[in-house]
């Protein structure tokens, strides 16, 4: 059974350290697929994104998503990290890495976890503008919801 690691934290993380940790001390892993989500500056308009989360549920929901991925694909390790708080453009927001014996389940699981995380993990983004305005809450995109359909 793949080891699931989920962390919800305000601190930054190092993707290379997380990838290395998945493979440390074992020789059965054939590939690790990782995704790193960053804060965009939206064409220079944004000073920061503020991420609110539902403490407790965020960890539990992402763990449920990871458990579903582990039940669907033959994985050897799965890591998901999501930050909250204020994040400047260029900063890390989310990281998902899936380790497996072969590439196909690793690619599929990483994509599955990201698709569900976007629409099911209780996080909300608020934009802080460079003009000093604390702006609007980012609206959910229909295409994120539609992305879930293909996994049914």
């Amino acid at each position, binding site marked *: 059974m793949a080891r699931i690691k989920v962390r919800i934290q305000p601190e930054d993380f190092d993707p290379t350290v997380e990838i290395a940790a998945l493979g440390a001390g074992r020789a059965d892993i054939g590939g690790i697929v990782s995704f790193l*989500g960053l804060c965009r500056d939206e064409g220079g308009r944004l000073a920061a994104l503020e*991420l*609110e*989360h*539902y403490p*407790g*549920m965020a960890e*539990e*929901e992402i763990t449920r998503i990871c458990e579903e991925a582990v039940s669907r694909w033959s994985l050897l390790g799965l890591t998901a990290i*999501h930050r909250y708080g204020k994040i400047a453009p260029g900063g890390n*927001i*989310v990281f998902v890495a899936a380790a497996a014996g072969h590439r196909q389940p690793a690619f599929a699981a990483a994509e599955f976890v*990201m698709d569900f*995380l*976007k*629409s*099911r*993990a*209780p*996080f*909300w*983004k*608020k934009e802080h503008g460079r003009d000093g305005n604390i702006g609007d*809450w*980012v*609206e*959910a995109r229909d295409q*994120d*919801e539609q992305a879930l359909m293909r996994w049914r």
Partner: protein
Amino acid sequence: MKVSYFAWIRERIGRPEEEIAFPASVVTVADALAHLQGLGEEYAYAFEKPGIIRAALDRKHVKPETPIAGAGEIAFFPPMTGG
């Protein structure tokens, strides 16, 4: 029951959580939302589009028709925008 709010729902209501004793007529999540709508202007504003509001019971996603009996905490929030 502990009721929690997040993002713009929290901002519109003006508090992150509160204790609410729902009347016996409130059976489902949708009933609870309808009850909250009647608590004042700020609630009516927060829940003006009930169709887009999401809910969780004891930190698990639930549908509007889910019964709330036995749960310790209900949360209302907008569609999520993580990742």
